[in-house]
């Protein structure tokens, strides 16, 4: 834990200075998690603050300081769910909407053969973000926490309140769906570029 249990108990009893200490200790970790989950830097602080507001409002309900971190992760996951739900309503980014350069950049990023230029990095990031937008928010959260955030199955089982075997099954399914989504995105992108090429060939210029 990044703070002593006494600090959590003090914050539970309404000590704002103790709560501020908690925020300072955890803000970087929470912002990192939120960033990986929503992949939009401009909205990260807003969602991160939402997490801490929810923590402030619900801290008194926490039964024991030892479950503080899983509790905070749950609040983070829920805030990200709510954000993604709103964003999804506004429409998702499709791979076919991206430029050919962006798609090429992902190949470069994955092959790791050369250092990426800044614009290529932006493209690859956007594209991989688009992939995570393609899978359900539940799969996205699980994959982010396990594969990107690096949480162990044991830690995840506390957060999700399920046993590790059930988690393994969920992870397996989430990975399958992510790979399938990647395949669909790649096919769409290829189709899109082929159509563009055909159009440019047919045009008199």
């Amino acid at each position, binding site marked *: 834990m990044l703070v002593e249990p006494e600090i959590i108990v003090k914050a539970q009893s309404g000590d704002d200075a103790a709560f501020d200490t908690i925020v300072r200790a955890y803000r970087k970790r929470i912002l990192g998690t939120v960033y990986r989950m929503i992949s939009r830097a401009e909205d990260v602080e807003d969602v991160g603050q939402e997490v801490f507001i929810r923590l402030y409002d619900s801290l008194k309900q926490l039964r024991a300081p030892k479950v503080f971190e899983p509790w905070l992760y749950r609040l983070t996951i829920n805030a990200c769910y709510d954000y993604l739900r709103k964003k999804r309503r506004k429409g998702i980014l499709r791979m076919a909407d991206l430029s050919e350069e962006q798609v090429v950049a992902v190949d470069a990023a*994955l092959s790791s053969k050369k250092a990426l230029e800044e614009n290529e990095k932006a493209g*690859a990031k956007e594209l*991989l973000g688009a992939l995570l937008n393609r899978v359900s928010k539940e799969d996205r959260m699980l994959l*982010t926490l396990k*594969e990107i955030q690096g949480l162990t199955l044991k830690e995840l089982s506390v957060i999700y309140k399920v046993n590790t075997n059930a988690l393994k099954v969920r992870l397996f399914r989430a990975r399958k769906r992510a790979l399938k989504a990647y395949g669909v995105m790649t096919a769409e992108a290829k189709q899109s570029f082929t159509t563009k090429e055909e159009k440019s060939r047919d045009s008199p210029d």
Partner: protein
Amino acid sequence: MTVLTRQVLDELLSKYWGRAFRDPMSAPDRQFLSHLLSTYKDLLGPLEPSPHFNAGLWARIEESRLSGSSWMSYWIAWAPRLALAAVMVATALLAAAPWLSPEDGGQSALLDSSYVDVLARDSMDDPDGALWVLAENGR
């Protein structure tokens, strides 16, 4: 006792299901996805909170506190007036109850003479109806 090895599993599946066990997700697929996500992690990089993060957070907490307390003060201010209004409405309903009772209220409106005239005139195509209205009026 037979130990359930991969080979045994393959034999059993071939015998009863007609095909050998196939891992639904191959190792290269798993590696590819892990690589994809770790690339994403590297691309995202670390994120530092802005210098105003805590100040902004406390401003939002204060705002939610105020909106919560303003609702409370709103209810406290209006509670006596709402209670008085509820008592007045209840009194009015109780006072009007005899006038609204189905035995009297419905009939008195029906037996208004001008209304009966109009109804009788408009009901000439339906003599039974007109007669009933006139009979009721004369009762």
